[in-house]
């Protein structure tokens, strides 16, 4: 349990917890970006390099952009973003749900026996990932590719469809 792991876990948890409680949406998204960078550092500590840099490329490089553009395109006057009694009640119920789920999962984690033999992890080289993707997981890769294409086409159609033509049709 070294210091790097503890610092990474601390930074990630604190930034995600602060991100959920801010009123300003742009600051929330930027703190969530710090959370994703923290998760990338966590993957690097575990020597999963390919996944770490994929996470950086996809989440920090792409999904953060999509979220920020969505925040910018849907901006309203700040007066509607106030705390009121209903949102406090909702937050308390959500907190109770989250804490009870966390205690359940923590109980399950801490009271499970670990396996007896300690196996050293094989280095997950890019070659082995590529080999598995093209031999064993090739159908999954092609389905994911077509799914991503369909998702892009669908989201472009959804976001670009103007309400003017919708009323006329």
């Amino acid at each position, binding site marked *: 349990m070294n210091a790097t792991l503890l610092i990474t876990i601390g930074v990630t948890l604190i930034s995600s917890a602060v991100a959920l409680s801010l009123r300003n949406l742009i600051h929330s998204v930027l703190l969530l970006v710090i959370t994703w960078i923290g998760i990338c550092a*966590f993957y690097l500590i575990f020597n999963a390099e390919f996944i770490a840099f994929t996470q950086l490329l996809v989440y920090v490089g792409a999904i953060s952009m999509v979220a920020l553009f969505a925040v910018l395109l849907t901006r309203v006057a700040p007066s509607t973003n106030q705390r009121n009694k209903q949102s406090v009640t909702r937050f308390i119920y959500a907190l109770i749900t989250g804490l009870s789920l966390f205690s359940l999962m923590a109980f399950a984690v801490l009271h499970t026996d670990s396996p007896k033999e300690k196996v050293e992890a094989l280095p997950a080289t890019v070659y082995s990932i590529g080999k598995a993707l093209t031999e064993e997981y090739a159908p999954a890769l092609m389905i994911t590719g077509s799914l991503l294409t369909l998702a892009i086409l669908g989201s472009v159609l959804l976001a670009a469809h103007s309400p003017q033509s919708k009323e006329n049709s």
Partner: protein
Amino acid sequence: MNDQTLNLCLLFSSALFCIGLITTLSRSSTILILLGIELMLNSANINFIVFERTQPDVSTSHGTLFVLFTIAIAASEAAVGLALLIALFKHQRSVVIDDASQLKG
């Protein structure tokens, strides 16, 4: 990789999952709800990687591949969700989720 570190990492992913859950359940802005769902998917990915690097399958890296596909699916889901959000915003001029309570329109 001893027992304590494994437990710490699993608790970390559970905590991240619960933070994502609390965000999804309590915030009224649709964007933050979608980002909470992204955080939950991320915490599941962390779980996969932790287990793969401590107790690996000798033949292929199933955990890594599952995480790759999860990241791809999460990205496409974020794109579609935010496109839906923009379409909804054009209709009702507000991103508060409570305003999307009418079946008509």
